[in-house]
């Protein structure tokens, strides 16, 4: 009797809806965090400008969409433009600092983030812009009209991450990236041009941030501070997933997004954010190497 009562009290419909929501935001977050963790893993740089690359990616998307009229062109062009910008930032600001105290690179990327944010404010103004989604169909999920576009976001993010994984696993430059991540000095001694591998990895991370910015643009307004929320969450999942672990970050992205989504069934979404901080604190207290990496021996 008690069990039946309990089961009946569970809002199954809401849970399923929130599961879908959690996976959608989790995949976007995973796309942002993958770039962040790649950059950290390979050059020990905590990239505080990552959220601004996400934001600028969305803005470039806005501009290209306005001129070309195609969402897909906007997605590709924005990814490439921001990847190039990332390469330029790496060469001019981070390459000269390689091997210095980590604090210097943190300050440098923080400075870059302020410059990019204020550039966006100056260039595009404080009013949020809108990216029109490529299609506006809905399907019925219980009592909701659920946009197909959200599922497309999750699918595309997964596809980009999957392609990136295949590249790391089988591509010539993917092997260079993994070798450099594991042992920078020995990679050099094997003839791998490590400074350029760093630049390339930074460009890839930046491009992935830009792609997620364009994909996510239609769900929220595009403005100069949109990177801040995401970068904070991305940092949390990178730590929870285990610094520098790609698989860990992806798992943590989905895990935390699902927890937040479930929490917001009972509390307001603003309060649900607290869940991710609680997970972060618990992780740092009890498993500081990350939740989703094997315990180091």
């Amino acid at each position, binding site marked *: 009797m008690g069990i039946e009562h309990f089961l009946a009290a569970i809002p199954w419909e809401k849970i399923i809806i929130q599961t879908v929501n959690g996976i959608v935001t989790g995949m976007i977050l995973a796309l942002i965090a993958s770039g962040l963790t790649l950059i950290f893993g390979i050059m020990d740089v905590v990239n505080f400008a990552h959220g601004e690359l996400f934001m600028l990616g969305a803005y470039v998307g806005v501009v290209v969409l306005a001129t070309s009229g195609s969402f897909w062109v906007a997605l590709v062009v924005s990814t490439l433009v921001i990847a190039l910008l990332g390469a330029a930032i790496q060469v001019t600001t981070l390459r000269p600092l390689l091997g210095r105290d980590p604090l210097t690179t943190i300050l440098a990327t923080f400075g870059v983030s302020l410059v990019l944010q204020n550039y966006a404010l100056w260039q595009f103004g404080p009013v949020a812009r809108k990216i029109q989604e490529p299609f506006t169909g809905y399907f019925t999920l219980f009592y909701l009209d659920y946009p197909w576009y959200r599922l497309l976001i999750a699918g595309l993010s997964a596809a980009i991450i999957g392609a990136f994984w295949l590249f790391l696993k089988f591509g*010539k430059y993917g*092997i*260079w990236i*993994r*070798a450099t991540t594991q042992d920078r*000095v020995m990679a*050099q*001694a094997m*003839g791998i041009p490590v400074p350029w591998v760093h630049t390339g990895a930074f460009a890839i991370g930046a491009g992935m941030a830009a792609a997620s910015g364009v994909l996510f643009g239609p769900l929220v307004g595009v403005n100069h501070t949109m990177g801040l929320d995401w970068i904070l969450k991305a940092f949390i999942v990178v730590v929870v997933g285990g610094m520098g672990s790609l698989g860990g970050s992806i798992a943590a992205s989905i895990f935390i997004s699902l927890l937040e989504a479930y929490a917001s069934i009972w509390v307001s979404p603003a309060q649900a954010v607290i869940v991710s901080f609680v997970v972060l604190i618990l992780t740092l207290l009890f498993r500081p190497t990350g939740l989703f990496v094997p315990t180091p021996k």
Partner: protein
Amino acid sequence: MSADLTSSEPLVAVEDLHTYYGKSHILQGVSLYVGKGEVVGLLGRNGVGKSTTLKTIMGLVHPHRGKVLFAGKPITGLPAHKLARLGIGYVPEDRRIFRLLTVMENLRTGLDRHGVSEARKQELLDKALAYFPILAERRNQAGGTLSGGEQQMLAIARAMMLEPKIILLDEPTEGLMPRMVSQIREIIDALHREGVAILLVEQNVPLTLEASERIYIMEKGVIRHHAAASELMLNDAVIHRYLGV
């Protein structure tokens, strides 16, 4: 038979190298050379600067003073990856296998270079795997799961992928079982027959004397003695004096 100690065209020559780690003056004016296709031993007690000499040649440590020449051209201060492409292979003391990469991927780090045809890559792989059949068996295993001896073989095979003109070999037999040691010895001979020069740093004195043509003995950051290996084999007083064995 005395070796020719004044070979006219050295492949690698270092002149008056001074290297510091922080404030410690590790190399205090090291000069040596290795001729084309020559096996040269570098002996000395722990901490006299043998490994630092190799790292300095490889461009992993930058000297404060002195020159490194490769085929007569100055290479001091060039980044390590350019030296690797020029044909300097490096097998470090602790092997430094890419632990999460498979055996094949470890080999590919040196193989995926510009201007190497697929056929040539296959040829290089086949040759290395013929030397080290165990690596062929383990090809899809992560480097970190190999035994010490297997890791040493992988480190040497990996350096061979660069088609090096010289290999800097740092204590290849350290911590290995006797059977593995003799296998390393055979590999050194095989590379020698192929015309690859080797600068061999070792604690194993008998092996070094047998494998090398010439020997340098280091003490406290400088070369103290330079002789043909055959000479030192007959005169172990020098060995005893500097190495205490």
